[in-house]
């Protein structure tokens, strides 16, 4: 398993903690259940806290809490379960989440770019380091034209056309 972020393979400093497991001193990613049950204790104890959401756990329930997390991990149990694409956009574009948004689970070559467009910036890829990085880099290169405005800041075709129209009318 390799974690790719910002065009690099990076060391994963975070620990996913099961509901029955003891918490590490820092950098724990807890479940929604644990967060809801131990919210105050977790906040008192941690500077570095992450949360993982299953694909049937809608981030609406943590909409007010996103500033408490440095990592939010969204699970793709199978790549065909596309709920987390919407969740990611809601977290980024509506709930104002600025921390790491990590894709976990069935994270594959041919979906990874769509994930990035929806706001994911970290990817757990089930391959060795070099292969995982290549998967990420290759996936970035394939498409450079985008119709849909998302929160990723890429220029859309519409905005480019508008710019052209403005330039034309100015000249």
């Amino acid at each position, binding site marked *: 398993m390799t974690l790719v972020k910002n065009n690099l393979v990076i060391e994963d400093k975070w620990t996913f903690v099961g509901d029955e497991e003891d918490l590490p001193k820092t950098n724990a990613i807890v479940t929604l259940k644990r967060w809801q049950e131990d919210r105050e204790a977790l906040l008192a104890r941690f500077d570095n806290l992450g949360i993982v959401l299953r694909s049937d756990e809608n981030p609406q329930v943590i909409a007010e809490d996103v500033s408490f997390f440095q990592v939010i991990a969204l699970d793709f149990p199978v790549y065909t379960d*596309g709920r987390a694409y919407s969740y990611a956009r809601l977290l980024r574009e509506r709930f104002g989440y600025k921390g790491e948004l990590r894709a976990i689970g069935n994270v594959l070559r041919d979906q990874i770019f769509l994930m990035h467009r929806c706001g994911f910036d970290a990817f757990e890829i089930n391959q060795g380091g070099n292969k995982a990085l290549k998967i990420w880099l290759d996936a970035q290169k394939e*498409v450079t034209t985008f119709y849909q405005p998302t929160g990723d800041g890429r220029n859309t075709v519409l905005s480019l056309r508008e710019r052209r129209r403005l330039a034309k009318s100015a000249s």
Partner: protein
Amino acid sequence: MYKYDDYDQQLVDERVEQFREQVNRRLSGELSEEEFRPLRLMNGVYLQLHAYMLRVAIPYGTISTAQMRQFAYIARTYDKGYGHFTTRQNIQFNWPKLVDIPDILKDLSKVQMHAIQTSGNCIRNTTADQYAGASFDELEDPRPWCEIIRQWSTMHPEFTYLPRKFKMAVTGSPSDRAAVAIHDIGLRIRRDDQGDLGFEVMVGGGLGRTPMIGKTICEFLPKEDLLSYLEAILRVYNQFGRRDNKYKARIKILVHEIGAETFADLVEKEWVHIRDSALQLPQSEIDAIQAHFTPPPFEVLPSLSSVFADKVATDQAFAYWVKNNVREHKQQGYAIANISLKPVGGIPGDISHTQMDALADLADQYSFGEIRSTHEQNLVLAHVKRDDLYALWQKLDAYDLATPNSGLITDLIACPGLDYCALANSRSIPLAQRISNRFGELDRQHDIGKIQIKISGCINACTHHHVGHIGILGVDKKGQEFYQITLGGRADEHAKIGKIVGAGFSTDEVVDAVETLIDTYLNLRENKEETFLDAFNRVGEQPFKEALYDAR
């Protein structure tokens, strides 16, 4: 019609190369068939019973002659010389080799065509009224809106792995030829009380195992809000649509389970957040897209064409074709010509490469270089001068494209069925051919009048059999093909799901059963003007049921 700009072209070119790379990974063995499956499906490549099949998108059913000639070239070069028009206005090639498909897509990209999202659990090709821009009752051409939807939905990062496939249709006329009420989203252009044009939005229509008519969740949507509203609907569906059961995953089930009002509330709540976002369509963009669909340079013509009237009076075969296949046009002196792909005893929707080339020439000569495909598996030349109809008809006839049966009983719709399709339970094409042959005699067809028979080879209902006046569904019963009959369905602005009339019929019995239904109708109709559907609606199913089953 719409012409790609460099951005549109670049995206399609990039997609071709992306797919080529995916095919290479499959051919090298890096991807298993199972891993490759979702990738090929996202680009319209199915694995059928005998071969791969490639489904090419025809956005809103509008085809240029250059595109039609490219279809002919592809059919000739990579396939067995023919193509098949589908009930979603697309074209399918049934025998391409996987290794050739990237090249086929490259050839398509040269004429601004693609196979993006013609399969998979994503937003599919948006369909429209085949008479768009030609019909006299049209409020506005729906195709610019379909093009706007095409662009927005193409490789949408959020909506590529939906619970299930997603289909939209748009009509600009009050008389609905696009069957909008049986789509996941149906859009009907209408006026509000200020006289402004916008959309009525229907959601949750669909057929398959659980047929449903769409429900209106927005009476009037301002045009500039189209994409934000669609995005809101899709976002609600993507989050809350069922993923536990493939057969309950379409949006119609979600709308049904939570209720149209609750669904509309969820959409409204989502929409509030994104209505004023970058999804809002600037007038400049709407204008730019609409400029691609301005009417062709029609000539000013007299309302009466003496050439035409003379030929109708003197040539009976032409007169029949005019009566059945030619429709009124909004422009004086012009007409809409329906090109039937249903020769008696033929395969519905099939067309040879020579026919494609011939039709392209005729469209260049007589219809401003544009052809339409219909969800009834036919083609249309939308803008033909009345003066030219006779010459056109003669040339069509030379290519076996002048079957005068539009809207008649042999204009039946059939899916590929068990002859091609991996999902089918039964054959459809041979049954369509047998029914067509049984009723092929033209006088008899005229006597029977307007009627629509739709044959699906399985419950996925690709031909929309639930909304056929007579619907026929093939089922598998202990290894035998059986055909279940529904009556009284319709797909127009009064859309209605037909009712199953009773026990199914064997392959040997089913054509006789259809004939019994037709004879029953002929005996009980009040006069020749009363169509099968009108008569059925007046008397109900009982007389038909008795005729079918009492003698048994």
